């Protein structure tokens, strides 16, 4: 991997870019006086929390602002030519030809009614390439971005592609005219780590082989650390710090960058409380005075609230906008982590015990005749959770994590197996069993926006939950207020509607509601994956506190290995409806025995520049559909040590491996555990 760019000419020069959105709440300056340059062949990472203006910057450069956005001032020079005065038709000639863009959501970025080949060819056609040539080149491009079997796949429609393949197609479209600049707006956010690793590898190859300059927009510090040459941190529509990645990671010059880096839980880190950034990202319509970050800043001084710091040089090609660092102060102060008193119970009886659980999500009646064939999204899972213990569950999207948790709380019906809650068999999920489940196990949902009824106040949502637990009237009101305190919300906000809260605050409400029934255990289904890192850390801390104070057991689901590592005592890794590896967290993370676990760990980008050159295992392809799982070991189709790579391993396609004790101590379901 090249870390020093060879070319030195400036490709794009953005100066003083200011973008405004006139809205009914006043003019929103989504991007304010942003300047940066990018040389040929370089990769620039733009990071920042949600709403900091990353996407708007990218769109402004492409001349594709959504209405009612307008560029108030600034210049954007691409190879010496100012793009902003160009008309729409002139921009059409530039877009796709000289610079191209990759969007976040590969599901939505392709026209569903057009063949992928045609969509790639279109990128050429509109720049004057002949039809036949365009098609031939489309096939070439598809092969280049690593799509197999091009002859056939070129005529498929996007819905016949998986998410990762679609993102490759989008990249192929971007590359069609060999542009010199590629703007990628969070190209991997919607993808699994394994797929993300594939895409990132592809981008690195492109830069190496074609010398393309890339603007990589992301909120993942790990991606920046692994991919980018230089980085730019945005906050409230402004650049707060920028510089070469290695230097910035080594010593930040802005407290925001610092906080951002530290709020990320790491797969290899210990379990002390995360240094969360308090509060929430600012509303761009109502930015705080002075330095927009000062209300959340640990080192803020009086001047920070009064006057806005300008960007100024900090040496090593770095700039930052911070009064503290400008005056030579240190910005790397972290809130002192509290020492946690944690009493991991010895081995009390488990609250939840699941044995050989199978769930069919496919069967439903179809018209008058017949049923659709069964789809086992959960296929023989056994696990248990003790009070005060956290079991982390990781796995790629679609592997059945949510289905498993929904089956436990009775939303889905188990097809076979046994669920025991607090010593009682509730597999039947009849009325009594459900009552038992709901009083013991509560659920925290992933999407803080969707899990609260927008028409009911927070207070109503809480009292409703309390009502089920038998607390009513004045007692319920008192208890609701206590719950608000418990999750760190202002009890005065009980009579507000969900829309008045930020995502993190809503997630706190969701947790408060789950606590209303005084459960012994919480199932948290990706409770933080929709949140910004800073908020994510807050919620993780809250969950940790609750567990320690109340002795709750957690089944904690996530696809972020760092988050799981941070919270869990034990970890289970799921693949295609089965647990492939499980054991104490240190063991699983420390010496993974299943090749899948190994691959997951190695695909996760670490926010450390030093990790760049580590050997990485990139899985190819996607997880098969649970509707027709492969025979034998379900992982064999992607396994780097499986029959596709090692001859003579027919056993993998014949026999489904059982979970067995491995030399390292944990359980793994692999015929060749620990080989990788």
């Amino acid at each position, binding site marked *: 991997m090249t870390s020093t760019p060879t070319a030195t000419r400036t490709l794009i020069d953005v100066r003083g870019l200011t973008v405004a959105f006139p809205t009914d709440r006043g003019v929103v300056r989504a991007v304010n006086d942003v300047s940066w340059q990018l040389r040929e062949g370089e990769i620039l990472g733009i990071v920042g929390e949600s709403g900091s203006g990353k996407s708007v910057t990218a769109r402004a450069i*492409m001349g594709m602002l959504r209405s009612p956005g307008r560029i108030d001032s600034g210049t954007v020079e691409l190879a010496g030519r100012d793009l902003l005065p160009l008309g729409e038709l002139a921009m*059409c000639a530039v877009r796709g030809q000289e610079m191209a*863009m990759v969007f976040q959501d590969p599901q939505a970025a392709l026209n569903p*009614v057009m063949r992928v080949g045609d969509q790639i060819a*279109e990128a050429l056609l509109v720049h004057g390439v002949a039809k036949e040539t365009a098609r031939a080149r489309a096939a070439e491009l598809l092969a280049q971005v690593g799509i197999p079997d091009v002859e056939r796949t070129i005529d498929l429609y996007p819905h016949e592609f998986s998410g990762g393949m679609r993102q490759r197609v989008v990249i192929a479209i971007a590359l069609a005219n060999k542009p010199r600049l590629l703007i990628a707006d969070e190209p991997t956010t919607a993808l699994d780590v394994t797929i993300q690793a594939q895409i990132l590898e592809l981008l690195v190859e492109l830069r190496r082989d074609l010398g393309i300059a890339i603007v990589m927009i992301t909120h993942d510090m790990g991606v920046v650390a692994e991919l980018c040459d230089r980085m730019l941190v945005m906050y409230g529509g402004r650049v707060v710090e920028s510089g070469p990645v290695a230097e910035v990671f080594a010593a930040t010059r802005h407290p925001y960058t610092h906080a951002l880096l530290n709020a990320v839980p790491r797969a290899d880190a210990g379990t002390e409380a995360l240094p969360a950034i308090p509060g929430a990202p600012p509303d761009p319509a109502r930015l705080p005075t002075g330095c927009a970050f000062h209300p959340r800043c640990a080192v803020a001084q009086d001047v920070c609230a009064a006057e806005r710091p300008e960007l100024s040089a900090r040496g090593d090609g770095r700039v930052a906008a911070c009064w503290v660092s400008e005056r030579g102060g240190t910005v790397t102060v972290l809130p002192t982590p509290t020492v946690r008193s944690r009493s991991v119970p010895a081995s009390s009886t488990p609250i939840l015990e699941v044995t050989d659980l199978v769930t069919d999500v496919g069967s439903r009646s179809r018209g*008058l005749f017949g049923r659709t064939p069964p789809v086992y999204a959960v296929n023989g899972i056994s696990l248990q959770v003790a009070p005060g213990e956290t079991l982390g569950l990781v796995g790629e999207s679609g592997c059945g994590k949510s289905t498993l948790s929904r089956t436990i709380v009775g939303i889905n019906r188990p097809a076979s197996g046994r669920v025991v809650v607090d010593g009682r068999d509730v597999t039947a999920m009849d009325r009594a069993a459900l009552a038992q489940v709901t009083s013991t196990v509560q659920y925290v949902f992933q999407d803080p926006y969707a899990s609260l009824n927008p028409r009911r106040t927070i207070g109503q949502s809480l009292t409703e939950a309390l009502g089920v637990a038998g607390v009513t009237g004045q007692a319920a009101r008192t208890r609701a207020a206590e719950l608000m305190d418990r999750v760190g919300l202002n009890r005065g906000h009980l009579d507000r509607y969900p829309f008045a809260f930020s995502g993190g605050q809503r997630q706190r409400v969701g947790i408060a509601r789950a606590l209303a029934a005084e459960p012994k255990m919480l199932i948290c289904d990706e409770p933080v994956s929709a949140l910004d890192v800073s908020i994510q850390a807050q919620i993780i801390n809250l969950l940790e506190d609750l567990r320690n104070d109340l002795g709750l057991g957690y089944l904690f689901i996530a696809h972020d290995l760092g988050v799981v590592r941070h919270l869990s005592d034990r970890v289970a890794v799921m693949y295609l409806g089965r647990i492939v590896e499980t054991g104490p967290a240190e063991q699983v993370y420390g010496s993974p025995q299943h090749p899948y676990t190994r691959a997951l760990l190695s695909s996760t980008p670490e926010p450390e520049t030093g990790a760049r050159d580590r050997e990485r295992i990139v899985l190819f392809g996607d997880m098969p559909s649970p509707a027709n799982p492969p025979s034998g070991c379900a992982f064999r189709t992607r396994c780097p040590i499986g029959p596709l790579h090692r001859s003579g391993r027919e056993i993998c396609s014949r026999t489904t491996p059982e979970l067995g004790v491995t030399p390292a101590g944990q359980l793994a379901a692999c015929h060749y555990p620990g080989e990788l």
Partner: protein
Amino acid sequence: MIRFLIGKMPSFLLVAFVSSVIAFVLPRLAPGDAAVELAGPDATPELVEGIRAELGLDQPLWQQYLIWMGGVFRGDLGQSYILGRPVTELIGGRLESTVELAVLATIIMIVVGLVLGVLGGSPRSTAARSVIDGFNTVFLAIPPFLTGLLLILLLGLAIPLLPVSGEIALFDDPELGIQYLILPAVALALPQAAVVARLLQTSMLTARGEDFVDLARAKGARPSRVTRKHVLRNSFGTVVVVIGLRIGDLLGGAIVVEAIFARNGLGTLAVTAVQSRDYLVVQALILGAVLIAVVMQLLSEIVLAALDPRVRLGG
């Protein structure tokens, strides 16, 4: 496709069966029957009884139903009680008038609806957009009969350009026929066209906000191409479904429009048949209407599947 049709069979048959029962029972629930109508205004009760026996109306209902259904399967819809003619012949005689009206109205609906929808769904000056919106709002709000009456007042009486009443078969005299057809067809089509236009417009505006449109722009595609290849292509699905449904509505609207423009179509036949308790005619018409609606629905599903590769013709 064949599989799809076979898969649809059971629900199709169910709908047909239930409709046939309703079509059979509904008119019979009303007081009076065809025998009374046949006997004439000054008839004696014995006469009515005699006619009733002769027509078989004194048999139990289920028996009458079975006889009717038996006939339907043999392609024989029975004889009109009142006119003594085969129902097929009666309907056949009126079919041309209604088909002419419906076909022309459908064409107008589609053309006007698409043109206005595309205009409204494309980026345009606010002035142009408000004109289109205004048109849509007005015609969405006004039903065919009001449009018809307004057209009569305007083009028939104030500026007498076109005949307002009566009809001439298109095949007998195309030039005159079309003149008689224009006003009722326009009256019938405009409100439906407004529905189509409004829907096309919204789905185009929605499509315009999709990521793939952004991607197309990022490729460097020109606005017109983006509209044509990406926005329009993705909006047609909804439009097809709507047009399918609207054609059913259009046939319903034809009843009043025929009454207003004094056309002798199936609508008029239906009204008189209902009023004179000419059961078999009513039954055939209702069954036909329901079947047309079902077929339109199937057709639009097929067209939809052709337009959108994500839609599979599954059972």
